[in-house]
């Protein structure tokens, strides 16, 4: 009954009164803690962003099946190279709606006096693998020296950028298509990509020709063939049929995502998970010490309350409510800070409500655990010490 009154605000709430008495100190403590919890949220957000970005590149291809070099797991896991004319063979199979050859390569380009690291995707025009969802401008229509860049590259429509020996004009822009490492993606035609990959300087070309004469003229390769199937065709079955050709391997979209999850994302999850756990442990220790210090500061008040007849639940409530208030205020402030500042992070931060709610629950548990030391100290305070002068 008394508890109900307290919750309904018809009582003198000792926790709130104590907080408002030391409001400046309490808010400063919350601010410090909010930065810590904000970092925890940001790390979870970066991890989610990493997943979205990594899978985004796979999903951007819009493929149900990936045909790659035999005995490999595709270009996102390891080197995969196959002749470009494999596309025609694959496209001729029953059930194929469309197929396109794609290549992936990381390049560094000079732009406005800065070095930009980009993932160059070479794709065939109007075939699977080309830039999806061009939000500004148009897709690539000519096979030479046109590019569609992601906004993250910082390129404007009509702007030019030099890749290798050639200069490309940006004709379209995409949004949120970046590599798993965070590098912005730039789409060019497959032919340009092959040239970019294999064009050597004259001196290097002469040296290569001398070293391995037979190798010259074999630049018409791709890293993978991406396949869209006709409605009703089973992707797994199709992949199994193609994989029977020994020089090819296949992955469904699900397999490809699993490969990424197993390599790039899993490692990031371990690293971010470790740091998140460490930060939460540090937060627990900090909240615990702050609550303990606040309890020690109130030792005489607690002894007096006990002496005049306050039950233990009242004392415990005072400490636990303060710990929870600290956790809730810090979490909300941290979330607001990260929400406002996520555009300034070098990596994409994706804050999902479910993650935020889970972390909020964890913070509440952390607060309860952290208040245990303060509660234990408070319960051990002898009421007679109030009379000790």
């Amino acid at each position, binding site marked *: 009954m008394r508890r109900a009154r307290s919750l309904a605000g018809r009582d003198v709430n000792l926790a709130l009164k104590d907080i408002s*008495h030391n409001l400046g100190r309490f808010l400063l403590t919350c601010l410090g803690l909010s930065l810590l919890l904000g970092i925890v949220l940001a790390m979870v957000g970066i991890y989610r962003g990493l997943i979205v970005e990594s899978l985004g590149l796979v999903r951007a291809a819009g493929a149900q099946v990936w045909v790659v070099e035999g005995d490999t797991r595709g270009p996102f896991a390891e080197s995969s190279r196959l002749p470009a004319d494999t596309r025609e063979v694959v496209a001729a199979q029953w059930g194929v709606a469309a197929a396109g050859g794609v290549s992936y390569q990381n390049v560094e380009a000079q732009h406005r006096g800065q070095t930009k690291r980009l993932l160059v995707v070479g794709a065939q025009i109007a075939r699977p693998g080309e830039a999806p969802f061009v939000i500004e401008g148009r897709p690539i229509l000519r096979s030479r020296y046109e590019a569609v860049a992601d906004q993250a590259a910082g390129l404007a429509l009509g702007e030019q950028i030099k890749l290798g020996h050639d200069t490309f004009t940006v004709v379209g822009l995409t949004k949120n298509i970046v590599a798993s490492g965070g590098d912005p993606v730039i789409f060019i035609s497959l032919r340009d990509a092959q040239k970019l990959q294999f064009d050597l300087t004259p001196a290097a070309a002469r040296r290569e020709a001398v070293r391995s004469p037979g190798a010259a003229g074999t630049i018409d390769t791709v890293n993978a063939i991406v396949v869209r199937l006709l409605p009703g065709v089973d992707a797994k079955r199709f992949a199994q049929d193609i994989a029977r050709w020994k020089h090819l391997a296949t992955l469904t979209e699900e397999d490809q995502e699993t490969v990424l999850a197993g390599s790039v994302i899993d490692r990031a999850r371990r690293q971010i998970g470790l740091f998140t756990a460490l930060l939460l442990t540090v937060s627990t220790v900090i909240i615990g010490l702050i609550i303990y210090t606040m309890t020690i500061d109130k030792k005489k008040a607690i002894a007096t309350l006990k002496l005049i007849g306050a039950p233990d639940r009242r004392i415990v409530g005072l400490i636990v409510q303060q710990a929870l208030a600290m956790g809730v205020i810090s979490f909300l402030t941290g979330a607001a800070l990260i929400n406002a500042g996520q555009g300034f992070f070098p990596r994409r931060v994706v804050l999902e409500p479910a993650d935020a709610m889970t972390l909020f629950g964890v913070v509440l548990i952390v607060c309860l655990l952290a208040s245990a030391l303060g509660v234990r100290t408070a319960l051990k305070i002898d009421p007679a010490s*109030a009379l000790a002068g």
Partner: protein
Amino acid sequence: MAEQPIVEIRGISKHFGEGATRVDALREVSLDVFPGTVIGLRGPSGSGKSTLLNVIGCVLEPNSGSMRLNGELVFDGKWLRADLRGLRLEKIGFIFQSHNLLPFLNAWENVAVARILAGASLAQAKSRAVELLTYLGIERRKDAMPGELSGGEAQRVAIARALANDPRIILADEPTAALDSERAGTVMDMLRRVAAERRTAVIVVTHDEKIFNRFDHIFSLRDGGVEAPQFEAA
């Protein structure tokens, strides 16, 4: 018909430690305190004054003897009530040397909190707090925080808190130690008024000779024993 004592102590003993380290803080102490009286407990340091106050306040368990508070046998070789905090809330008001007001509550809230602990609503508790602060002449300072009150004002608020639940017993531990003679006299006059008007038994531990003439009886303690009352107030 003769009035019954509110505090009735018979053969109370309390010792700390055992064997060579044993210290007898109280030895077979017997004491009666009647309604409407203000008694003083004096004695040198270590004489057992504070131990006796803690025993009467039900915060320290004696080793033997019996104790009756307001007619209820509360100790007879052991505590007879499990809820000693409830017992204190119901029967005893405490006044401390340094007032011990909760620093995060204002004057009326400090008084009201004792009433709320006893189950009153906030409105009832506030009304009672204001009534007591008015009774003690400090109503105008009801919204002041403890840090804004003078020593005498703070002690009056502490007296109001001690009276919040209409206790029959008030235990005061050197309530005038931090006050000058004039304010000490005012506080003692207030306690005498409370005792007289509310038929409360007031037990005060003190060293302060300036206020000895404010007591009905003064008991001297020495080595854990109570000597006969030395004099009575005029």
